[in-house]
């Protein structure tokens, strides 16, 4: 028995030695190691990012970059902990939803002085520059923009007897209901009832009130009231919830991003409203072939208009960094030239560089609908939602809960809208 114990003890000491040697030592002798953290992690994107980092390291001898890729669902919390501890983080992915809280705590470095006179500004679209250079500072450089389009199954739409994809929310409801056939395992619409399920409902409401929408704050109408108080909002909400009732898989009550995308790419649903990055994922699907699906522009409301909410994220720097010069170089590298083009193409993002306008890649296949939208700015309004407010996460949790309450019969659409209106009116009054 003592022998066993001695053996155990010896093993233990060895193991402890192994672990203590195994932990990384931080920066190497004379070079600089930058710690970089991403937030919207997915395996394919991480691979692309690692490739770009290798290029950067090759061009900047002496600087190495250690990329940390926490799982998406806890990434922002992890980033926040790292920022708070003021250690181990130099460059980070800042989202339009996290920039508010991060700057409120003074955790982000204002990049304006670092990037003064940077040549890269000239190559960026006006939208990207506007987002980078905020009123109170330059907190991050967007790497691309997200925007919704309708992914649809050409074969199913045709089989149901329709000439083309739906253009409006009403047509979507009509087509999706026609396609829905639970016994065959085919469903109309990949409904988002789980995390961030409120987003598509808000988009529908914005399309219905598009004529009176305040573009700078797309939760308000031009008369200063909340969009949720508008009478059209109720029609929008009813149409939207009808989609769930008549044309969606029952389990989509709990669907978040991964399940929706999965539901479309495994061939069980005919329509999916999503960001362009899904183009890459669906392209890899083994269940549906490239000629079976396409994209269509965002759905319009009764007056023929749609509101495209701008969503973005980008690269920023922590206020605690000790390697600001190297970190600036990395951010510049990722935000310009080949690196930026590669990143936006591989992840299917709306690009930040003006040069993309002449790139045939962005006018073909699934991208065509984005070109259509860009070329018709009066039909597809580009609007800004108040995503940078401190209470955004609180709002999305509340709103997601309410969406689930309506589809599970605990709440009526009218009650939901009244609650949302009251919520924002109160927040705006307090702010």
């Amino acid at each position, binding site marked *: 028995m003592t022998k066993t114990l001695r053996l155990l003890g010896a093993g233990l000491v060895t193991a402890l030695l192994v672990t203590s040697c195994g*932990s990384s030592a931080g920066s190497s002798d004379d070079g600089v190691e930058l710690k970089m953290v991403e937030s919207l992690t997915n395996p394919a994107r991480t691979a692309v990012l690692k490739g770009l980092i290798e290029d950067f390291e090759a061009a900047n001898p002496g600087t190495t970059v250690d990329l940390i890729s926490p*799982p998406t669902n806890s990434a922002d919390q*992890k980033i926040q902990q790292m920022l708070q501890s003021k250690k181990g983080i130099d460059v980070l992915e800042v989202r339009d939803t996290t920039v508010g809280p991060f700057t409120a705590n003074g955790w982000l470095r204002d990049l304006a002085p670092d990037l003064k006179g940077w040549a890269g500004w000239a190559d960026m679209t006006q939208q990207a520059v506007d987002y980078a250079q905020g009123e109170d500072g330059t907190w991050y450089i967007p790497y691309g923009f997200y925007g919704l389009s309708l992914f649809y199954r050409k074969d199913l739409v045709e089989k149901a007897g329709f000439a083309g994809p739906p253009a409006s929310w009403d047509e979507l409801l009509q087509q999706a209901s026609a396609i829905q056939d639970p016994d065959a395992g085919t469903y109309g619409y990949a409904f988002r009832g789980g995390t961030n399920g409120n987003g598509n409902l808000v988009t529908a409401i914005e399309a219905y009130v598009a004529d009176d929408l305040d573009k700078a704050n797309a939760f308000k109408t031009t008369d200063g009231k909340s969009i949720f108080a508008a009478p059209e909002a109720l029609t929008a909400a009813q149409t939207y919830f009808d989609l769930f009732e008549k044309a969606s898989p029952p389990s989509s009550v709990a669907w978040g991003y*991964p*399940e929706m995308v999965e539901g479309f790419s495994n061939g069980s649903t005919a329509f999916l409203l999503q960001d362009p990055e899904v183009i890459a994922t669906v392209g890899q699907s083994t269940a549906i072939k490239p000629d079976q699906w396409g994209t269509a522009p965002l759905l319009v409301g009764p007056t023929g208009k749609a509101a495209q909410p701008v969503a973005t994220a980008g690269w920023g720097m922590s206020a605690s960094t000790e390697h600001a010069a190297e970190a600036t170089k990395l951010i510049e590298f990722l935000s310009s030239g080949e690196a930026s083009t590669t990143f936006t193409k591989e992840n299917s993002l709306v690009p930040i560089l003006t040069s993309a306008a002449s790139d045939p890649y962005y006018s073909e296949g699934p991208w065509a609908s984005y070109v259509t939208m860009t070329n018709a700015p009066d039909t597809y309004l580009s609007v800004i939602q108040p995503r940078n407010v401190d209470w955004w996460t609180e709002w999305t949790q509340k709103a997601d809960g309410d969406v689930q309450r309506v589809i599970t019969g605990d709440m009526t659409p009218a009650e939901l809208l009244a609650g949302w209106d009251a919520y924002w009116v109160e927040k705006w009054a307090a702010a």
Partner: protein
Amino acid sequence: MIFRETVPARVTRVAFLGLWLVITLFPLYWITVTSLKAPGDIFSQPLTYWPTALTLENYAGLFAQSDFGVFVANSLLVSLVGATVATLISLLSGYVLARFEFRSKGVLLAAFFVTQMVPSFIALGPLYLMMTKLGLVDSRLGLILVYIGICIPFCTVMLRGFFANVPDALEEAAMIDGCSRLGALFRVIVPVMMPGIIASFIFNFVNCWNELFLSVTLINSTENQTIPTAINGFISSFNVEWGPMAAAAVLTVVPTMLLFAVASRWIVQGLTAGAVKG
């Protein structure tokens, strides 16, 4: 027991135990079958309970797409070291709490008990900050230290129960023979209590092996991740791929299942010794 079993009783017993065996094993069977199906077959209707084409594609994919081998090694290391140290330390504290009467004993036991009642979630933020200051964030050593702290309270109470059932005449005799108290503990009592110690160790091992929230908080880089953290990553990264996911689940469950299968006799034996006193 000593009663003769009537026929209906026997039928009930066999039927119930058989049913429960099926219920217990079915999820494992199902996830294994899922992991052996080709990606396209997983979503095909009707469901196949015995796939005609078995493939290891998902396992290959798992190891190709991620450093799963590294995660397994990390989990093994963290769990083995954490559980061993925690058991050794708890042996000491459990022994003292069983053998000695002293004033602050009740307070100490209560303090151990309270750790089981507070949701650990409220401690995650402060823990991260503390570990940063100690330079132990994103390190397996740091994770091991935290796991030891987590395991000790329950393990101590459990071992205390086992000590209480070992006559103290044993170590007194050894001490008269010239052993130190520590010597007496390890030479005389530990061998007698081995099943109980194994039970405690396995309890600790399983807790460390399965722990999710602390490792998600404290580990940043991929090369330091444990299996639960990695699986959490799979499920939340953009597409839930059930195939590789199922493969990962099988590979996670099997080691602890084997450990349990091998040790189940000792576990019951060990707990039996400590049972009456709880």
